[in-house]
Structures are given as structure tokens and as C-alpha cells.
């Protein structure tokens, strides 16, 4: 019987042909927890009476959410993680290594056809490498660290086909914001999303991570990007959905005429074409996160800001997704362009996205952010307003001091970045 890519991956892991709606106990390939979720996971692991990790090489801890530690309490939680990793022999990526999802993909802890569970809702990002990946909470992850297995309801799938090619002034972020606007924050609840189509095939790994990471913003369990066109630094055999697989729903969007998109405060699904809010004054511009903190995102900003100065009243904060990204951006001169334009670089990690530190906005301040969520209080202040957009739109807005389309200020985002 024909299967979706999601069903295929789960079937391969359970050793039997699974169908949507049935419950399955699945062995996983890797499990991840961050400094927001690992402390409770470690506590639950101990309370379960567990001692040894199921596979120390498959348990990954990452310090990224409040990194480096902003206060004593968090410093002690980080210490707890380091001690646990040392004691149990698992891998810990410490301060500055980067955002858990970037680290997982860069270091090949999440690979095509695998099942990877992370204690972070954006773990669906590994769908970018055609893995079945989903977020769970600390106790589920503790159970995984202990047993290597979890239970799940095999999800039915929604197929999203993006036909045509993205216009030059748009990026993967505009695609996914558009989709979140169409489906809403619960439009894919409990379901798997499978992305495909011409516009998806030509996306880089970075663009695929932008897409997959925001699947959870529609309530999806997972978001797998069709591996056609996927390039990885290691050989892999791509699994594909059967041509006649059954999907709960199929959406086709021709994106040839897509314009830059923006999510209005305070929900990622309040999406309008960016031109509708052009001219809105901003105070903070933020580029980073598991959704948009990679080299091509930084480069898109640098293409716009090269030789320019951001508006004097704007703070432009940049958090590279990983040390690797930061190093690459250093080597190619991207960091220098952005820094000379007035950007402030902070530690590779989640940065101000979760509102813990490194850029909490003031009351009534307006933020334009390349992140994935703009819920009220998301960045640590319920009295701030957050707009979500592509890195190019964030850079253009930082330059002008008001929400601005990338095409208005120079190179469109889609142009091939040039080495300075």
C-alpha cells in the first residue's frame, strides 16, 4: 500500500506497515534537550529510577536558550547539565556552540529517514533533512533517554505544494509566513506536513530549515521537506512519498508572484503582505534563531547593509545560529559588513527570541524579527510589539528605521551573494 513519507519513516522504524491514527511504539535515532528543558528531563530521568542512558552517543544536550548564563540560577542549571553529561557520557554542546537545531543538523545528529525527538517545539526543523522529527516535553524526553523509545499516534499528513519559483525579493521565510497565514496556528494540529514542489526543490538546506522549523506554528507534529534537491555533505539515500499516497488535505500555491510577507503582533498567523505595514516605525531589528540565523540569512542582510548605516534610533541585534555559521560569516566578511553598518552581534544561540536576556524590548517598543514566534511577551516584554519577517526585510527595516520592503533599498534578497 502506498504511503506518505511520514508513514514510510515510521514504518521503517517499527518494522511494520503503519497507518494514520494508530498508536505505535517507535525506537528513535537521537534525542535532544536544551537548557530550558534538560534540567526537568534530568530530574525526571533520575526520578524514574534510571541510571544509564539508552545510548550516550545518541543523547544530545545543548546550552542555547539562556547562553551564556545571565544569572546565578541559570548558571547552576547549566552546571547540572554539564555534570550529567560528564557522568553519563553523553554529548553536550556548551555556550556558544549554537542553537540546538542548527547544531543537530550541522553535526549530523539528525539525518534523512531518521526519527529524532527534541525537547523543544522547533525540533520539527530536522524535517529539512527529511527526518521525521517532533518536539516533546521534558518527561517524554527523559523516558527516551532511558528507553530509546517513545509512543506516538501515526499522524495523517497534509501535502503543501509550492509551484513556480520564488520572486527575487522573497525568501523561504516569506513562503512559510504566507502558509502560516493561510492555515492558521491550529491548521495542522496533530498532523504531519510534507512540503514539495518546484519552489521547494530549489531551496538550500538553510531555506528548508526555515520552512520545516515553522511547521509547529501551524500546530503540526512534524514538517518534512521533500528531499529532492537536498544537498548534504554526506551521501544519503532519499526516501520519497509514494506518488499515490493518501493525504488528508493537499494545498497547491503558485508562489511566482509572492510578495514579502509579515506577521503582525501578537500571533504568527496574522500575516499580511509587508507593503500593508510599510512605514511602521521600529525600535529593534533582530536576525537569528533556528528559523533564520544561518549564513545565507546574515548574507541577505549584509547585501542590503553593505556600506550603509542603520537608522540611528534602531538596535540591530544578530545572533548567528551556530559558531560554525559565525565562523563562516567571519571568513567571508559578512560579519564586518554588518558590524560596520551598526549591528550588534551576540552569542550564537537563541538570543532574545525567548525573552530571557540579550535584548528584551522596552514597553511600547516595536520589533521586527526574523524569528518564528511573536506571541505577546515572547521577547520578555508583554508590552512590546513584534513583527515577523525575512532577514532581508529586517535588514531593510533597520536601515530605514521603518518597516521596509527589501527591494526598496537595494539588492533583492534572492540575488546571489557576492564575496566582498
Amino acid at each position, binding site marked *: 500500500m502506498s504511503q506518505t513519507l511520514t508513514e514510510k519513516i515510521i514504518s521503517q522504524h517499527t518494522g511494520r506497515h503503519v497507518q494514520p491514527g494508530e*498508536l*505505535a*511504539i517507535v525506537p528513535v535515532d537521537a534525542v535532544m534537550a536544551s*537548557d*530550558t*528543558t534538560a*534540567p*526537568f528531563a534530568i*530530574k*525526571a530521568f533520575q*526520578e*524514574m*529510577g534510571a541510571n544509564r542512558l539508552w545510548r550516550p552517543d545518541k543523547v544530545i544536550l545543548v546550552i542555547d*536558550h*539562556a547562553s551564556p548564563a545571565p544569572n546565578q*540560577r*541559570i548558571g547552576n*542549571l547549566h552546571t547540572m547539565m554539564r555534570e550529567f553529561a560528564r557522568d553519563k557520557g553523553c554529548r553536550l554542546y556548551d555556550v556558544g556552540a549554537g542553537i540546538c537545531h542548527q547544531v543537530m543538523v550541522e553535526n549530523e545528529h539528525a539525518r534523512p529517514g531518521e526519527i529524532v525527538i*527534541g*525537547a*523543544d*517545539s522547533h*525540533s520539527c526543523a530536522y524535517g529539512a533533512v527529511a527526518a521525521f522529527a517532533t*518536539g*516533546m*516535553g*521534558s*518527561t*517524554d524526553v*527523559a*523516558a527516551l533517554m*532511558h*528507553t530509546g*523509545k*517513545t*509512543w506516538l*499516534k501515526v499522524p495523517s499528513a497534509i501535502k503543501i505544494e509550492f509551484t513556480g519559483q520564488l520572486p527575487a525579493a522573497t525568501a523561504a521565510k516569506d513562503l512559510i509566513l504566507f502558509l502560516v497565514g493561510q492555515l492558521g*496556528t*491550529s491548521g495542522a*494540529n*496533530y498532523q504531519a506536513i510534507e512540503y514539495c514542489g518546484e519552489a521547494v526543490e530549489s531551496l538550500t538546506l538553510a531555506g528548508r530549515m526555515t520552512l520545516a522549523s515553522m511547521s509547529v506554528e501551524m*500546530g503540526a*507534529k512534524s514538517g518534512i521537506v521533500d528531499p529532492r534537491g537536498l544537498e548534504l555533505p554526506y551521501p544519503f539515500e532519499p526516501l520519497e512519498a509514494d506518488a499515490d499516497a493518501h493525504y488528508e488535505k493537499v494545498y497547491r500555491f503558485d508562489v511566482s508572484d509572492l510578495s514579502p510577507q509579515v506577521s503582525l503582533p501578537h*500571533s504568527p498567523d496574522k500575516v499580511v503582505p509587508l507593503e500593508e505595514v510599510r512605514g511602521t516605525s521600529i525600535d529593534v531589528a533582530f536576525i537569528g534563531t533556528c528559523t533564520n540565523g544561518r549564513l545565507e540569512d546574515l548574507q541577505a542582510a549584509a547585501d542590503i547593509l553593505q556600506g550603509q548605516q542603520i537608522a540611528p534610533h534602531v538596535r540591530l541585534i544578530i545572533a548567528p545560529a551556530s559558531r560554525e555559521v559565525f565562523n563562516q560569516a567571519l571568513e567571508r566578511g559578512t560579519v564586518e559588513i554588518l558590524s560596520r553598518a551598526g549591528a550588534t552581534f551576540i552569542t550564537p544561540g537563541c538570543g532574545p527570541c*525567548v*525573552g*530571557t*536576556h540579550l535584548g*528584551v524590548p522596552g514597553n511600547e517598543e516595536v520589533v521586527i524579527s526574523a524569528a518564528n*514566534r511573536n*506571541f*505577546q*511577551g*515572547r521577547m*520578555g516584554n*508583554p508590552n512590546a510589539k513584534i513583527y515577523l519577517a525575512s532577514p532581508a526585510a529586517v535588514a531593510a527595516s533597520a536601515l530605514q528605521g521603518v518597516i521596509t520592503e527589501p527591494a526598496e533599498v537595494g539588492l533583492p534578497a534572492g540575488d546571489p551573494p557576492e564575496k566582498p
Partner: protein
Amino acid sequence: MKGKVHRYGDQVDTDQIIPGPFTKTLNTDELASHVLEYLDPEFRSRMNKGDFVVAGENFGCGSSREQAPLALKASGVAGVVACSFARIFFRNAINIGLPVLEIGQHAIESGNELEIDLESGTVTDLTAKHTYQAAKMPEVMKKILQEGGLTSYLKKHGNYQL
């Protein structure tokens, strides 16, 4: 279980249940002291132990933070009733032993007296004299909830039983 209703709307996300900056602690009382802080700053002073949080669609959307159901439970909330839930929150709530009941469209109002029966999955609005039937949970979830959460479930069974 009987208690008073605190009614909220649709899309109550995890940043409203427990804002990110307050999640970095193992102290559940500390979590409880910030529960629903951005949504309803008066909640803590108004609620009594055993009360219910009742909401609309997609309760708990957003982050995977287990601190969200933990904060509600530690503050004394006896359970959450909603039209629908976001999946990670629902799973986390069961895993930490906080009853969650999905009842579809309802007309339960703040201040009403509510009775829930976990065995039968019924939610009765004693004030409006109306009973709702909650969606059936997978058997494995029911068992986890009966054991008081996933930690004690695994301690007892050693592994998952379907």
C-alpha cells in the same frame, strides 16, 4: 473533582501560561508564582486550589516547555478543560499528571461550578446544568494519567505498554 471556573479564550499560548524568562528553574512554586502572568495578572490572587482553567481552541500552543502544565498544577489548578489543545501541551500535561479534557464547543463561563469525572470523561457545568463528554484519550495516556504521570508509570512498568 469539583471547582470553580476561570474562563479564557482561544489560542492561549505557552508564553501566556508561563513566560519564557520564568521557565529556567526547577522550583515549581517559583513557576506557579508566574502562572498566566501576562494573560491574567490577577489569576493567582483570585484562584483557589482545585479550580479549573477553561479555555477555547488550541490551548497551550507554542513552546514544548513542560513548565506550562507544571506551573498550572503547582498553582493548584485541578485540571484544564478546552475546546481543543495543542499536542505538546496535552502530552506534557498528562505526563506530569495534570488532567486535561477536550470537549469541543462549550458555553462554560467564569465563576461557574464544574465537576469532572476522569473515569467517564465527563465535564459537568453544575451552574448551567449541562454535561459535556470529553474526547477519548489513547489508552496509554489514560494509564499514564492514572499512575499520576509518566515518571511513576515508567517506574512501575519499565517501558511503554500499548
